[in-house]
């Protein structure tokens, strides 16, 4: 099909179309809405043979999606922010049903205050549910990840739902040149969903999501989910190899940028890591041996890949686009947990930035590299800091004056 200029949202919709999804229960929310509008249009004009239904809420939407998946239909749905939280209860339930639902989340900051800009508290809130999480940097990656997500979710060694994440506005509405794969090629990569485990059949009654009484059984089922999620890392490698063989694009569980001889590493996810990569390039020009590590998966957490990539590095700065209020950056905590038992581990610094879509400027990246270098020289790691500039503080002070609060 060649390349087209696609937004992240339309790239996601193309992924769904090419996966020949059967069923899409939907509910609108900014900045996700373009995905369901695009799919609705294709179904209306006959270019997609699927069933589309607008539900009464995200809670209902996720339920319908999970139930359809359990019935044997390849199912897609998508949401953002408050919508994801409204359906939160059913995220856990659907994961427990062990159905291969694929869902795109277009990240957006959470209320209150209400905002449209992105950060990752929405998707990270469902981190422990059993959904696998793929985080995307580019529009191409969004399309490709939707296809890979179905392969992974439907593998009988996994059978867990997958969430594909992209940043609202920064990626959802950014146009990039995206290669739209050929339908036949996609079919050879992602065969029709013919589940052995699902299908409510008259000839074979089945109970799904039954209660258990007692912690022994509960632990057993939860642990099965944990093992399946961990399996996904190995199986993902098979999926990636197939994907590369058929489409020529290679994805790993982590993305490493200029990491080979790097000493000072940024850890970032999603579209802001493009800014991080530009900062790494500049730092290199200034003689700083900089690199960037972008985890593509946050669940399962690619521990051994991250440990390997950070072996022998001097300092690592985690830039969290989220804030666990009362604790700090969520990914920082994950990284600290991952590296704690390593004898030769780099210093770990924490920065919180990009909340609600707030820009991270080149100057701020320079500040982060300075902090990494001085920490590595002195061995002293400063406490976590929120990236917030003088001029931004002046801006909010002015607003507070207008509001009569200053």
């Amino acid at each position, binding site marked *: 099909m060649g390349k087209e200029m696609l937004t992240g949202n339309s790239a996601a919709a193309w992924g769904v179309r090419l996966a020949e999804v*059967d069923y899409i229960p939907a509910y609108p929310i900014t900045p996700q809405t373009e995905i369901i509008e695009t799919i609705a249009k294709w179904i209306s004009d006959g270019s997609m*043979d699927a069933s589309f239904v607008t539900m009464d809420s995200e809670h209902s939407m996720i*339920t319908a999606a999970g139930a359809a998946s359990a019935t044997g239909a390849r*199912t897609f749905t998508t949401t953002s922010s408050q919508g994801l939280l409204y359906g939160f209860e059913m995220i856990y339930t659907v994961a427990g049903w062990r159905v291969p639902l694929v869902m795109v989340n277009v990240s957006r900051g959470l209320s209150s205050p209400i905002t449209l800009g992105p950060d990752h508290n929405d998707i990270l809130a469902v981190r422990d549910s059993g959904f696998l999480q793929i985080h995307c940097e580019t529009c191409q990656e969004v399309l490709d990840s939707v296809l890979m997500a179905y392969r992974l979710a439907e593998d009988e060694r996994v059978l867990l739902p997958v969430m594909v994440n992209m940043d609202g506005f920064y990626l959802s509405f950014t146009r990039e040149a995206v290669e739209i794969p050929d339908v036949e090629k996609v079919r050879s990569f992602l065969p029709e969903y013919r589940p052995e485990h699902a299908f409510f059949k*008259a000839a074979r009654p089945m*109970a*799904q999501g*039954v209660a258990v009484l007692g912690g022994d059984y509960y632990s057993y089922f939860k642990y099965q989910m944990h093992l399946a999620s961990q399996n996904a890392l190995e199986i993902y490698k098979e999926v990636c190899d197939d994907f590369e063989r058929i489409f020529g694009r290679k994805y790993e569980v982590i993305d490493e940028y200029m990491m080979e001889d790097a000493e000072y590493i940024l850890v970032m996810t999603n579209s802001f890591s493009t800014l991080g990569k530009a900062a790494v390039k500049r730092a290199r020009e200034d003689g700083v041996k900089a690199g960037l590590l972008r985890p593509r998966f946050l669940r399962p957490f690619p521990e051994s890949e991250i440990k390997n990539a950070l072996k022998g590095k001097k300092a690592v700065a985690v830039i969290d686009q989220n804030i666990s209020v009362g604790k700090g950056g969520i990914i920082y905590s994950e990284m600290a947990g991952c590296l704690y038992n390593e004898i030769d581990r780099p210093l770990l610094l924490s920065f919180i930035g990009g909340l609600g879509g707030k820009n991270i400027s080149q100057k701020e990246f320079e500040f982060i590299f300075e902090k990494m270098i001085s920490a590595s020289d002195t061995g002293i790691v400063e406490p976590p800091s929120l990236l917030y500039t003088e001029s931004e503080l002046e801006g909010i002070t002015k607003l507070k004056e207008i509001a009569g609060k200053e």
Partner: protein
Amino acid sequence: MDTSTIRSIKELPPEENMLPGTAACAGCGGLLTLRYCLKALGDKIVIVNAAGCFTLLTIYPFSPFRNSWLYTAMACAPAGAQGVRDALDILIKKGKLDPEENLKVVVLSGDGSAYDMALSSTSGAIYRNLDFYYICYDNEAYGNTGFQHSGASPFGSRTGTTPPGKEVPVGSQLQKKNLFDIWNSHKPPYIATVSPAYPVDLMNKFKKAEQFKGPKLFISHIPCPPGWGFDPSRSVRLAKLSVETGLWPLKESVHGEVEHTYVPKKFKPVEEYLKEQERFSHLFKPVRQEDALKSIQEMVDEYWKKHELLP
């Protein structure tokens, strides 16, 4: 299913689609209702069960059902039914599923879900004209958590969260929501109230509903021995009394047109029903709460007067 009307209890189908040995309470009116409903629906169905008492019928690895079953949360069984129905339809359309394997989709929920938490998803499913059966077993409180007040709890009843006391001697001060009318305002093809004490009426309503594509809704008034406070052997008697006193009208609505399917020849006083239950005992002792008893009787009389069915 043979859609001809049945006339007596002897004509009920002998097949059982629910096996004995469940964890439900002795004398559970809901279980009795469900047994009759499943006789009517047959075994080519999938039940989408909202969280509630009946979630505990299916406990790993056991199930009393001959049919398929899916758990959802309290707020969303109708949405689960939507997913299953749509998936079956599209799979059959695409030739991925043999039409022989088609199933009726049935929502099963208690009143806490149906009257309260799932009202939005229920409204959505009726509005979308989802082809499904919805059975609400209404014991007038949150039974599974030990009997707390729900939107279905009647005025004057004691529940865990409406305990009669010095300040509020009457217990629940709110009137039971009218779920039948809420559903009926959506104009679905078929709605009925049923009772496990009237299995012939119940069975015929399911037979009638069979002809309609779209939402087919059933609310069953069901006695709950531990919640209402009575001996389990009296369960059917109490279900019968709620109908004979006029408190639970047996009726149906076809595309919004309401008709009563059973009108007692002579209405028994509501007190006969109330005094048999611990949850209303505070209305009689230590002092009779005349006003409360009178207003319950008046509410019943007004209903039947409005429908011009009071003898």
